[in-house]
């Protein structure tokens, strides 16, 4: 396998920051260093400004450059090593002037102790434009107009502020303790709402109700590692804690038909605690085994939200508890120089021990009123062998197996099967045809089936509709073929070709002709990398990625599962062509330049065709085109300092109809605007 540096367009921050790292080689010059890429020669800092005359929430979705104006560009990477003690000090800041800033301080004595503290922000701006008259957005109490009302611009966004702390200590040459803690505060609002059937203004009884986000997520990972050349062990504790400061969303006003749809529940707090032990052992240089044992308990005991009618005897919270046990063991060996063997077995039991209580009385025809704990037991195994043949050929083959066993409730509206089994056969032929040409072809054939279907059943015991085999439970035959070729036809040129094809064939339920039918995916890619000289280099790639799913259903089947006068097939396709081109050059000793262009043309097709009955219309295709051009130039004023110029052109164009005609009953309207954004930046960098 050959790995190559590939140029790729990155976000605005990457574009503006690129090139601030110390000079090594052209391909490396354009990227900043990072906390872990520490080097005594890596210290650098840059300061500058960027300007865009354009507004675009999608362009700035994850970096905050959503509006026209000036933005600060400030980054640094300060690294020091004390050669006497082997102590590293590292202060790193990226995108300090933008919303996706990262700041990290790290100190460690190599091979002995270390600690770090890190702060990061991840914004997410809702790219849709929104006009709404809904009041109280951002809080847990919304005020909904009772008639469609034109409103003003509304901005939905979230931001994650995370602080990470950690330390490590090695002792007795083979032991190491590592502890990492992360606290993340997430705040903001996200797209949400409520609705029900029945006539209403505009499209019906659907109301815009942004969800307030105000939650805390914590993770603690503490482990002890023991490492020798033969035996490695790693055991520890992993705890996660989620605390939601809003556990319900209250609506006031709005449509009378939605009067009982308040409060709406928001995600409850929960936590999990896992203890684990993983290990590896080398029986010989050619035989190694590994394992992992883990047990986790996840609980959810958040108090039930107030203000809703409760069934008797359900208590004050769910008493939710899920115990998960994991056991895995594997061994790989090379008993002969030409023969490699692998065996692996994994067992995971997710046991949902949440007590079953009656939450709804009386039961309805399709629901017995109880909660539905979900337990899943998964067993996977694989056996593989590979053998080196003459003429640089290597053949490998294997068999994989997965069994999933699930539980279900007595009354259900979706067909279910307790167990699914999937067996996969894999064969691969790999050949190094010459020192400059290697190739591989592989084929995987999988067959999934399972236990008899458990029919949908109503509370009365009457069998309901049983026409669909859910896609993750259905009998399925899957074939996958992969071709890969790496070629260096001449010294400066590297070519890579890759083709992946996959086909799924789903079996419908006995006596039914509807449900998931077929699926397919084709991926073609060609990459080229050409080194013109020590000063100039270019890369280019093209890929085509197509997926297709065919499924059949029928409108308004009877409760016993008889289709009406119409059955139709939907063929949903996603077709995309993607191109990337990158150039790096050093036309003069003091000047470096670079350009990256990427372009994606994505077409989503939603074909619908009546198989029985009246014709149906297809949905319009959705065409989405994304273009991004990134240019930079760097002029070295001195050996260790200089000026960098950046220009970014970003274009998003779509005819997506998802929101184009939609109007909420309260008058809220959303749109997905196209954009063309220009961004220019200038910065001064210094290395020391």
């Amino acid at each position, binding site marked *: *396998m*050959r*790995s190559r540096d*590939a140029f790729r*367009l990155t976000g605005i*921050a*990457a574009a503006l920051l690129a090139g601030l790292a110390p000079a090594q*080689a052209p391909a490396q010059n354009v990227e900043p260093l*990072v906390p872990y890429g520490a*080097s005594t*020669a890596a210290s650098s800092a840059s300061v500058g400004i960027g300007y865009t005359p354009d507004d675009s929430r999608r362009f700035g979705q994850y970096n905050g450059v959503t509006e026209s104006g000036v933005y600060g560009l400030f980054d640094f990477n300060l690294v020091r090593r004390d*050669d006497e003690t082997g102590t590293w000090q590292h202060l790193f800041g990226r995108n300090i002037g933008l919303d*996706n800033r990262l700041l990290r301080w790290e100190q460690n004595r190599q*091979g002995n102790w270390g600690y770090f503290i890190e702060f*990061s922000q*991840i914004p997410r701006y809702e790219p849709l434009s929104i006009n709404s008259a809904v009041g109280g957005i951002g809080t847990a109490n919304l005020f909904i107009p009772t008639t469609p009302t034109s409103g003003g611009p509304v901005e939905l966004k979230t931001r994650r502020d995370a602080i990470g702390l950690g330390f490590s200590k090695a002792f007795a040459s083979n032991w190491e303790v590592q502890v990492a803690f992360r606290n993340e505060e997430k705040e903001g609002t996200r*797209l949400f*709402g409520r609705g029900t059937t029945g006539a209403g203004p505009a499209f019906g009884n659907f109301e815009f109700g942004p969800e307030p986000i105000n939650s805390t997520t914590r993770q603690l990972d503490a482990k002890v590692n023991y490492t020798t050349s033969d035996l*490695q*062990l*790693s055991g520890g504790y992993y705890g*996660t804690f989620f605390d*939601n400061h809003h556990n319900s969303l209250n609506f006031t006003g709005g449509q009378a038909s939605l009067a*009982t749809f308040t409060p709406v529940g928001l*995600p409850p707090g929960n936590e999990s605690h896992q203890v684990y032990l993983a290990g*590896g052992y080398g029986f010989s240089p050619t035989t190694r085994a590994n394992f992992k044992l883990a047990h986790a308990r*996840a609980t959810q005991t958040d108090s039930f939200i107030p203000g*809703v*009618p*409760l069934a008797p005897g359900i208590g004050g919270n*769910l008493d*939710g508890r899920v115990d998960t046990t*994991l056991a895995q063991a*594997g061994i790989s060996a090379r008993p002969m120089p030409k023969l490699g063997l692998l065996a*692996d077995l994994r067992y995971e039991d997710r046991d*949902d021990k949440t007590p079953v209580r009656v939450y*709804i009385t*009386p039961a309805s025809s399709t629901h017995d009123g109880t*909660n*539905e704990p*979900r337990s899943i037991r998964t067993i996977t195994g694989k056996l593989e062998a590979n053998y080196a043949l003459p003429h640089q050929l290597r053949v*490998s083959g294997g068999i994989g197996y997965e069994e999933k066993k*699930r539980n279900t409730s007595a009354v259900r*509206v*979706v067909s279910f099967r307790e167990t699914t089994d999937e067996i996969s056969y894999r064969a691969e032929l790999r050949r190094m045809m010459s020192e400059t040409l290697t190739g591989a072809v592989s084929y995987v054939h999988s067959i999934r089936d399972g236990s008899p279907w458990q029919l949908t059943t109503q509370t009365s015991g009457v069998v*309901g509709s*049983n026409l669909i085999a859910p896609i993750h439970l259905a009998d399925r035959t899957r074939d996958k073929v992969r071709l890969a070729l790496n070629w260096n036809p001449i010294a400066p040129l590297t070519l890579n070709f890759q083709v992946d094809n996959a086909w799924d064939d789903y079996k419908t339920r006995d006596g039914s002709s509807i*449900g998931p039918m077929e699926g397919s995916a084709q991926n073609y890619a060609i990459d080229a990398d050409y080194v013109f000289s020590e000063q100039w280099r270019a890369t280019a790639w093209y*890929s085509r990625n197509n997926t297709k*799913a065919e499924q059949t259903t*029928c409108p*308004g*089947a009877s409760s016993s599962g008889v289709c009406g006068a119409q059955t139709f097939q*939907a063929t949903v396709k*996603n077709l995309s062509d993607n191109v990337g081109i990158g150039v790096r050059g050093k036309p003069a000793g003091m000047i470096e330049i670079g350009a990256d262009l990427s372009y994606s043309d994505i077409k*989503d097709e939603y074909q619908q065709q009546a198989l029985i009955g009246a014709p149906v219309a297809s949905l319009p295709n959705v065409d989405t085109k994304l273009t991004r051009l990134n240019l930079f130039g760097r002029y070295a004023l001195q050996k260790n300092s200089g000026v960098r110029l950046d220009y970014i052109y970003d274009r998003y164009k779509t005819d997506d109809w*998802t*929101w184009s005609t*939609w109007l909420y009953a309260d008058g809220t309207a*959303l749109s997905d605007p196209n954009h063309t954004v220009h961004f220019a930046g200038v910065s001064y960098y210094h290395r020391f």
Partner: protein
Amino acid sequence: MGDGGVTRTLRAIFKVAGPLFFLPFVLLFASGPRAQPSADEVRDGRYCANCHADAAVIWTGKHGTKADSRAPVSVGCAMCHGDPSEHVKSPGNPMPQRFSKMASADKNAVCNTCHQGSTRIHWPGSAHERNDVSCSSCHKVHTAHDRARDKLTQSEVCFACHKEQRAQINRPSRHPVREGMVACSDCHNPHGSVGPAMVRRDNVNDTCYACHMEKRGPFVRTHQPVQENCAICHNPHGTTAPNLLKQRSPFLCQQCHEPTSHRGQVATLSGTSTNASTLARGCLNCHTNIHGTNNPANISNERTFRR
């Protein structure tokens, strides 16, 4: 000065400077082969840098920390590349461990001498190991900047092989991979794990919960596929459908749900109150808490994530 004068002057210069011109050649041949380096020069790589100057940048990083007795600098280039004696005698003699000519397993064995255990325990038998990925396929040690360890550039390394994902991260619905806020290794452990697709935690859902813990529950009303595997409905690498969904509503939902009542309706843009599963949030226009809700409301048929 006439022509004769110029000639005389040049001859005089040559007479004095001529020997200096030949001096380097004389010295070169007089000295024979390059002087043999001392053992220390070979050991610590100083001698190697005469020809492999670019490679010497490795000593500015972790591998070059002299105070750490485990670091390769304590042994020199030989620690990874083998005994250089023959190569030093004549550059035509290759180093014993010449990475560009070694099988991936042999290359990895060199790195594993020091780098094993902890998160690498499940490297043997991992998809990368089985597919002849070597440490040096992704990591560059003779550089001040290992792209695989930078959240901003790491994905470029991964995309050298995972080309489908390269296209997907540019889709309208995506994680902030391009901005370097989410890296492939935030979700995957490229050194092997016990989960499918080398996910970082033990399974797909536990990996997603690291950032999306609000989806874990358990809830009063649970949605079966949500509890089983987030990837039944979502493609985390990027989609054109919103919220990283593999398909739009109602097509996605119709892959499991019976066509009774409104569930088998034809997708249409001419939405009505009972036919609004295509526009806006699709089926979620009503079933808003699709991942599950902990609302215990005792309301008839309230099992469908509407409150």
